[in-house]
């Protein structure tokens, strides 16, 4: 059987400050404190500030995460000079352009746009090479402000804003079915639209034609269905349709935050078995997580940093002799019997799979774990998630006598990285570093990285279990 490689990546950030009000935490709190909306609005960032924010540049691929050590704290007060909106792997997309893409991804006329705003959307989407005239034909029909307001007032449609001005609305698709409420459908369509951007970006980055995609897999955390099957899903095929992958089939992998790592392992299995040649894995953005930590940001007079949706996509395919290989003989699992202790989980995801292939923790150049941006999480008291994980891995290295205890923090710095990903659930789970790892392995500066992600099954109240999965990526032995 041939080896399996990660042939390409796509990373996109979509700046949506006017959607912060629809994040789960802000939305609930605004209902009990209407004045909160003004405070959130006063702490919103401009697009240019989101572009020049160092962790966002690291996520896009323009800045190696280790460079974040050299940037002054706090990062939001030290913008990267002349930061680019575009990178090798993707692009940061402004909110008005995203409204055009949202409408393009809309199959059920859920999105109404003010007829006076539509020409602007047609202009902005022309600047995006991922979308063409077939797409912009979906931006022909606008609606009057009066009809939009009537829908908001009488049929539970949600107003859509740009620079705090109402430019449209989002409809429910059933009068009583809560699974088809405007709130749920908006969350789902935002995931679809952002995922569609990432998959189109991936196809452009890799040169793969849409019709050559065999299988497409979502690892996102939305729930798609009506009241009789609330999580029925298959966002994968909806996104595949949006991206014209006419010969593909697909399905969703649901594993909470560990979804992307699970999906990549599933994809590797499909390719290695010979069932499919080209498998696309994607993660779409998470509207529910917008503004989740807003209280900490307001308290410390910071901008609301969770004003962005993250989207990522990866191509898993047969060995091409150039791109890094996935060591399918070194998959780490957190089996059901392992228990919830952090040490047991980390051993299962790092030490055990490495030992299977005769390696130690020190043989891994970089571990990529839950790469949440600590500048988002620490003000709210949620700590520095990547650092906590790296300390645990380093502690295991001490316990396994690979290093002395006094070398623990050096191990963390050498084999870990500052967190840099948008805090979008499954988006930060290990895979934001895949692009950087591919670059380093092709440049010959890295031999091996281990990608590990954890999932919180207990959040669904069906089990108290934690979860996790890992894989090792290595420089292709055939590469020069």
């Amino acid at each position: 059987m041939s080896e399996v490689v990660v042939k390409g990546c796509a990373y996109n950030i979509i700046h949506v400050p006017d959607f912060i009000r629809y994040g789960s935490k802000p939305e609930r709190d605004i209902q009990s404190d209407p004045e909160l909306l003004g405070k959130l609005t006063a702490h919103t960032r401009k697009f240019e500030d989101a572009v020049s924010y160092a962790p966002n540049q690291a996520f896009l691929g323009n800045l190696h995460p280790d460079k974040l050590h050299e940037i002054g704290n706090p990062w939001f007060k030290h913008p990267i000079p002349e930061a680019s909106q575009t990178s090798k792997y993707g692009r940061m997309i402004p909110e008005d352009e995203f409204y055009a893409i949202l409408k393009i991804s809309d199959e059920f006329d859920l999105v109404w746009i003010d007829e006076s705003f539509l020409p602007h959307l047609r202009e902005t989407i022309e600047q995006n090479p991922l979308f063409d005239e077939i797409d912009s034909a979906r931006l022909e029909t606008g609606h009057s402000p009066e009809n939009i307001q009537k829908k908001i007032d009488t049929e539970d449609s949600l107003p859509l804003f740009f620079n705090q001005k109402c430019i449209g609305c989002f409809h429910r698709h059933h009068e009583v079915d809560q699974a088809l409420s405007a709130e749920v459908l908006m969350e789902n369509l935002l995931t679809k639209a952002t995922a569609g951007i990432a998959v189109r970006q991936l196809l452009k980055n890799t040169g793969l034609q849409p019709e050559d995609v065999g299988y497409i897999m979502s690892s996102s955390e939305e729930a798609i269905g009506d009241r009789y099957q609330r999580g029925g899903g298959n966002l994968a095929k909806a996104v595949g349709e949006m991206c014209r992958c006419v010969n593909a089939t697909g399905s969703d992998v649901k594993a909470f935050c560990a979804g992307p790592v699970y999906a990549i392992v599933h994809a590797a299995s499909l390719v290695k078995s010979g069932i499919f040649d080209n498998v696309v894995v994607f993660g779409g953005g998470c509207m529910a997580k917008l503004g989740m930590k807003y209280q900490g940001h307001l308290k410390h007079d910071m901008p609301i940093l969770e004003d962005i949706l993250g989207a990522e996509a990866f191509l898993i395919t047969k060995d091409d002799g150039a791109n890094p290989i996935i060591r399918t003989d070194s998959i780490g699992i957190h089996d059901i019997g392992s228990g919830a202790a952090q040490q047991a989980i980390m051993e299962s995801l790092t030490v055990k799979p490495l030992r299977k292939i005769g390696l130690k923790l020190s043989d891994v150049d970089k571990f990529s774990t839950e790469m949440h941006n600590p500048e988002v999480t620490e003000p709210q008291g949620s700590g520095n998630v990547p650092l906590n994980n790296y300390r645990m891995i380093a502690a295991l290295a001490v316990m396994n006598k690979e290093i002395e205890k006094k070398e623990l923090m050096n191990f963390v710095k050498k084999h870990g990285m500052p967190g840099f990903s948008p805090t979008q659930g499954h988006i930060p789970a290990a895979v934001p570093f895949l692009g950087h790892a591919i670059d380093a392995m092709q440049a010959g500066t890295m031999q091996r990285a281990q990608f590990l992600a954890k999932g919180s099954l207990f959040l669904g109240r069906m089990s108290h279990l934690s979860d996790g999965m890992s894989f090792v990526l290595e420089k292709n032995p055939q590469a020069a």
Partner: protein
Amino acid sequence: MFNGKKIIVFGERDGVAGPTIVELIQAAGGDVVYSVTECFV
């Protein structure tokens, strides 16, 4: 300390999870009446 006491446990995924705390409390003689683990990222 926990003997005969009724305890509510809140665990955190990247800290100490609920089931781990429950085991410790029960070993120390406490009666856990509710346990949950949350994930704040």
